């Protein structure tokens, strides 16, 4: 049952990533490829709730999809290591999401 949920979430996050990551990549690289990315611009953008929610979502959804994908590879090749890998990857995901969130908040709070 747990495996089924992981499978469903992998598809659900995949659909979200096609939309979210597609938009993110388009905005960052194609709208104005020569635009400078600096603190002023990022801070200005992230102070709008749309950007903040969008980037927070991308952080969480991207980490889940990427790390669960690595778990799927481990399950294919070394099934016995699957459980340990699941815990280790969850820990990496939680730490990375937490640390990444501190940056998103810093763009709002740093003067």
């Amino acid at each position: 049952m747990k495996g089924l949920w992981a499978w469903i979430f992998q598809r659900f996050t995949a659909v979200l990533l096609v939309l979210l990551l597609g938009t993110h990549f388009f905005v960052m690289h194609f709208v104005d490829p020569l635009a400078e990315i600096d603190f002023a611009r990022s801070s200005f953008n992230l102070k709008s709730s749309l950007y903040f929610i969008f980037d927070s979502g991308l952080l969480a959804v991207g980490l889940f999809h990427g790390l669960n994908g690595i778990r799927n590879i481990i399950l294919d090749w070394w099934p016995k290591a699957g459980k340990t890998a699941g815990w280790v990857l969850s820990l990496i995901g939680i730490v990375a999401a937490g640390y990444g969130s501190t940056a998103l908040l810093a763009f709002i709070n740093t003067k």
Partner: protein
Amino acid sequence: MAMTQGERDVRVYADLKPKYYRTGMWSYVLHRVSGVAITLFLLMHIWEITSVTRGGAKGFDAQMALLESRFFVIGEWLLFLAISFHGINGVRLMLHDLGWGVRKQKSAFWTVFLISAVLIVLGSYFFSMKFLAYPWAH
């Protein structure tokens, strides 16, 4: 190859040597290699963005200035290749999961390959602009 049907089945499923790979296995390998690469990039991306928590606005700007070099523009372009293929091939896999085109997987893969190629050619125009513009005058 003088093998019975049974022997051939064993070889197809048990032998993971690239020598025996066909279209489906190569798409599987490409999907996974690109997926791992994008995930490693994501972790690096988080590290590079969190420079704002370590060095404030100045630290972030210094980090971004470092990432403007041609070396990293090529890196971004490679990331673009990986994301384009992985995303479009992922749509194919989900459609197969829903039962669509299961018996046409090979032609579906080449369709994915073609769509990715077109997207990559279009997107590469923007990356070449950025590559040629370096070093920037700011």
